């Protein structure tokens, strides 16, 4: 039950997958090895519908977050695939990341909490002399394109108990058999932008905090809880930032996220705005790096 909530651009052609090994100047780490820049895909901005993450209530009753039309103004450069076990291991060897059981070399790094992901981003930024960070939930939703799953519940039932029962049914439907073993990069295929393995069996951290917004007309309020971050994958989830291994049980139902991993975006400063002017008709304006 996915809803494509974005306006499709006229040209959805993807550049031919010419894999150019990027020659960003790597510095030698403590283990003496160089760090190669990751494979990135640069996406042209276009308006898209986005339903914010968090809890939204109206007069105490839970409601769906309103879907808004977002108009991003700059190019988004995002990793073609999730950070791998091998990638993460280089950060560990450089004494900049905590060693977690992060998965096999050629598979996505898993058992990663939000702090681990940020530590990796900070390390990669230092080593490559660029700004890498976790995407916001909006950026992830944009890059996910048709693989983004809307989390709105059917409208109408505002009775609290009915809402609980409704949510239970939605979550109970998530009992499809997903194997928890992370698979080789590319196993879940690419979306229309060439971004790999979205909505597979690895949920990805974003930097977006959980928010509780009340939508009362008289006095709307908003409380952020940045101890909980939004994670995205087959469905949207909220995860306490120090959790490495999500599990269900208790009142939770349906399968929780199988694994926690991540991918990063790169900020290119002014270049992000300039790029958007160069080739506005293309949705993917560049791919770079070795995404094998």
């Amino acid at each position: 039950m996915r809803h494509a909530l974005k306006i499709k651009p006229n040209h959805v052609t993807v550049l031919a997958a010419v894999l150019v090994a990027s020659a960003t100047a790597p510095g030698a780490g403590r283990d003496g090895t160089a760090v190669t820049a990751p494979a990135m895909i640069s996406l042209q901005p276009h308006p898209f519908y986005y339903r914010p993450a968090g809890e939204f209530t109206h007069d105490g009753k839970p409601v769906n977050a309103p879907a808004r039309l977002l108009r991003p103004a700059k190019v988004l450069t995002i990793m073609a695939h999730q950070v791998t076990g091998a990638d993460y291991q280089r950060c560990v060897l450089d004494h900049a990341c905590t060693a977690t059981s992060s998965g096999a070399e050629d598979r996505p790094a898993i058992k990663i909490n939000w702090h681990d992901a940020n530590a990796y981003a900070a390390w990669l930024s230092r080593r490559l002399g660029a700004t890498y960070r976790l995407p916001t939930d909006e950026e992830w939703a944009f890059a996910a394109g048709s693989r983004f799953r809307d989390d709105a519940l059917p409208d109408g039932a505002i009775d609290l108990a009915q809402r609980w029962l409704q949510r239970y049914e939605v979550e109970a439907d998530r009992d499809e058999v997903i194997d928890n073993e992370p698979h080789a990069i590319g196993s879940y295929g690419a979306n229309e932008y060439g971004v790999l393995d979205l909505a597979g069996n690895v949920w990805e951290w974003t930097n977006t905090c959980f928010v509780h917004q009340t939508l009362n007309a008289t006095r709307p309020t908003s409380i952020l809880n940045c101890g909980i971050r939004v994670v995205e994958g087959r469905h949207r989830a909220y995860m306490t930032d120090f959790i490495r291994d999500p599990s269900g049980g208790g009142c939770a139902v349906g399968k929780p996220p199988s694994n926690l991993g991540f991918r990063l975006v790169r900020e290119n400063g002014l270049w992000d705005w300039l790029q958007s002017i160069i080739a506005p008709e293309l949705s993917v304006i560049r791919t770079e790096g070795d995404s094998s």
Partner: protein
Amino acid sequence: MNKRIQHFISTPPPCLTTVGISAALAAFLFAAPALSAGELDLPRERVALVAPPFVHPHEQATKQGPKVIQFRMAVEEKRVVIDDEGTTLQAMTFNGTIPGPMMVVHEGDYVELTLVNPSTNNLVHNIDFHAATGALGGGSLTLVNPGEQVVLRFKATRTGVFIYHCAPGGGMIPWHVVSGMSGAIMVLPRGGLADRAGNPLHYDRVYYIGENDFYVPRDEQGKFKSYGSAGEAYADTVEVMRKLIPTHVVFNGKVGALTGKNALTAKVGETVLIVHSEANRDSRPHLIGGHGDYVWETGKFSNPPETDLETWFIRGGSAGAALYTFRQPGIYAYLTHNLIEAVELGATAHFKVEGAWNDDLMTQVKPPEPIPSDTRDTLQPSANGVIGHY
């Protein structure tokens, strides 16, 4: 007799040498003076058993007299998946389910069970009914090799919920039980259930929740091991058992078995009887958001029920029963209130209850909102109430 010896030699289970011979001898000794089957001048009724958590149709209060109730169960040794990670168990089951099905009879009825051990199985099995009297609960009279069946009849003289389980002798006893081989029987008073004053209590639905503790060995990397047969698993499993810490504590044989699409259902205003058994280990059931209106904690209806309980106690090796009339709609969790076992090891079931909300019993006077600031508070919210920052 020759056939029996043939089976004996061809499939030598580990404990038969100590128990099997004496069982045959016991059967011989008891057979002579007792009534042979069929001599009771009572009506007979054949009842088809139903997989848990459901229970076969039955009367509560009954105007009928005592009967011989005939049941049939076949033992099935099978590999089952017990959690969402795909962990397997070489299980032993009554009728293919963990727990085995619940039987319901009335005080004074005779339970006549045909217990079948198909030749596809590898092990000797039997049954011990805690509701029965003598012969190790029927265990000495029901040992069956693969390829054999036996018929046991016992008189249901005491009312209550009782467990039954396999107990083939020696080290086999705990192993078969923690491999899934237990179930329950309910013996109702002829007038149905009643409270302390003798007022009748009636249930609209009954659910049977069998709780099992499993002990699955792990390899050097800490992953659960898988085995080709129960026999191959035996030595490693006993090592884990002896530490007395289960790796899984589950309802209805698997983590999450009574949740999601298989959640239990009820309506506001309905009265539900929840029968809970644990054949090996203590448990403390709790209905989150509800209570035990009437609880026969020790499971025996000759004792008046306790009332208004938050949490009750099922002694390992017994069954108990709790009666509750739902008063609010929504989701309830029914779990053991060792919350580690409930959440980490799997001992949780869910109820989905439809109906109208009762504001008098509970209401959210003010929904969650930012704490109002006073003039001394330095964290002033901005105009739209946003506190905090990205």
